[in-house]
């Protein structure tokens, strides 16, 4: 009976997957085996695209490297920041509603306006960041305008968007049962013990979720390159999905772009599977594991 209900309730999602996702996905896989140039030729070339990708295309390896570099920096930063902020926001402090709104605001600003702001902040001559640095005696940086500092600058920029992860952490914190904290207090434990023995273990499902989502999303970072840097300077911010998008919709090379996409898919799949598999070791479900 449970089985029938299970399938029934998951049915809409499964139908949705079949209709709206699977078919286009298979189509794109098919396209990746062709040399389809939009408006032009379309012929089956087998695994040629993949071969080119792995052996000849310098931008493939470059963009992959750039993306991994960015992810390795941005994900921990944002996760840690978001967790910390969520903890702060979970306090009984006056004006909490206002604080919670404020911390979430940057996420609400439309990309177009946000980009303008950061371009201004990153300006080497009169931008805010260099002005602040200057006032404490550190010389100004080139930020997104120099190859070496462009990705770190974007990592910094990504921390502004920690509101999303923070909101989820907060919802998770809300769900930690009070009696567990009380138990620690009865044993004479202070805030750090509570954190280590109650908060973090109980939050592991949420942490797990945020981690997987962060991985999947950060690997597909796009907007910053699309709106702000166009992959420069010198391809140092040529994020993978931006490169893919450009190949598809500017160079019209749909076949190759699909190959790039499936390449990324496999990479993300592999990495998330790793996290999923190891999750049994460190994620604790109050409701019992499946």
């Amino acid at each position: 009976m449970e089985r029938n209900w299970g399938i029934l309730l998951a049915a809409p999602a499964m139908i949705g997957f079949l209709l709206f996702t699977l078919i286009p996905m298979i189509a794109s896989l098919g396209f990746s085996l062709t040399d389809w140039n939009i408006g032009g030729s379309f012929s089956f070339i087998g695994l040629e695209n993949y071969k080119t990708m792995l052996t000849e295309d310098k931008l493939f390896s470059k963009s992959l490297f750039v993306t991994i570099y960015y992810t390795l920096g941005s994900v921990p930063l944002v996760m840690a920041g978001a967790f910390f902020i969520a903890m702060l926001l979970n306090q009984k402090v006056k004006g909490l509603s206002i604080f919670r709104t404020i911390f979430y605001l940057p996420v609400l600003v439309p990309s177009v306006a946000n980009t303008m702001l950061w371009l201004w902040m990153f300006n080497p001559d009169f931008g805010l960041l260099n002005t602040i640095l200057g006032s404490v005696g550190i010389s100004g940086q080139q930020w997104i305008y120099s190859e070496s500092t462009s990705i770190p600058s974007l990592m910094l920029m990504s921390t502004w968007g920690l509101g999303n992860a923070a909101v989820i952490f907060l919802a998770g914190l809300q769900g930690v049962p009070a009696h567990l904290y009380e138990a620690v207090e009865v044993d004479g434990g202070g805030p750090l013990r509570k954190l280590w023995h109650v908060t973090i273990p109980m939050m592991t499902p949420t942490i797990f979720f945020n981690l997987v989502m962060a991985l999947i999303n950060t690997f597909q970072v796009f907007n910053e390159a699309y709106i702000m840097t166009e992959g420069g300077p010198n391809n140092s911010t040529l994020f993978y999905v931006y490169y893919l998008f450009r190949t598809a919709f500017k160079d019209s090379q749909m076949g190759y772009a699909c190959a790039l996409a499936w390449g990324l898919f496999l990479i993300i799949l592999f990495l998330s599977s790793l996290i999923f598999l190891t999750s049994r070791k460190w994620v604790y479900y109050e409701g019992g594991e499946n």
Partner: protein
Amino acid sequence: METNPVINSEPIKPTRKSNFKLSRIFIYLLLVLGSVIMLFPFFWLVRSSFMGMNQIFAFPPEWIPKPFMWSNYSEALTSVPFDKYLLNTLMIELLVLAGTLVSSTLAAYSFSRLRWKGRNIVFMIILSTMMLPYAVTLIPTFMMWKELGALNTIVPLTLPSWFGTGINGVFNIFLLRQFFLSIPRELEEAAYIDGASPLTVLLRIIIPLSKPAFIVILIFTFIAVWNDFLGPLIYLNDDSKFTLAIGLATFKGLYNAQWGYLMAASVAIVTPIVLLYFVAQRYFIEGITLTGTKG
């Protein structure tokens, strides 16, 4: 059901009172500092929205608009039919929010609470769809909708949400699944013993306990639809159907942009979301602990 525990403890022993005050001040300090940092983009946005082109880019940067160009707002919002765009966007929001709430809840419940063969595999497969960049499924999906005659309508933008996909669809399923997994089984077991069906358990027990998660989903999905540009760009042709995101993009031409208008329009578009969020996030405070029974 009372509010949640404070993690930074209120100490039991009286001798810790001075530490208590310090830690409180410290927290306030951090919050205020963080707020200033976070508010910066918004403040810059607002100040620019009241400035003329030449003042926005003045350096050293100026903070007080001289003169206060209220006209930016009136001109920005009327030169482009934002009222129509707003209605269109709200229509899409309504359909997507309703759809995603229903379909993701059902699916997440099934994936987390009901045991059936192949459940985890199906879940992983659906989850993996997020890993393929949207750019490459865009055209095949577009072709499919063309065959169905749904081009230039909001159907491609809304119908998938009713089936667990669409904007944020899979994300919502995943989030809810995690949330449901942390609900103690004892609550359901009691209901099953009483002869309840899984649907009843879902409606009676799981859903009421998951309000914070639903609020999160509503907010995220609302914002995602509000800001979605690529979808409307591809599927909508008529000006009368355009959404706010497209309206905003109109101000950014190929060779130049009307920055004052862009900023004003951005503020106008962001403000309702801010208000919505402010109201909605109060539910976090009135959140419900997942122990169900207290004391």
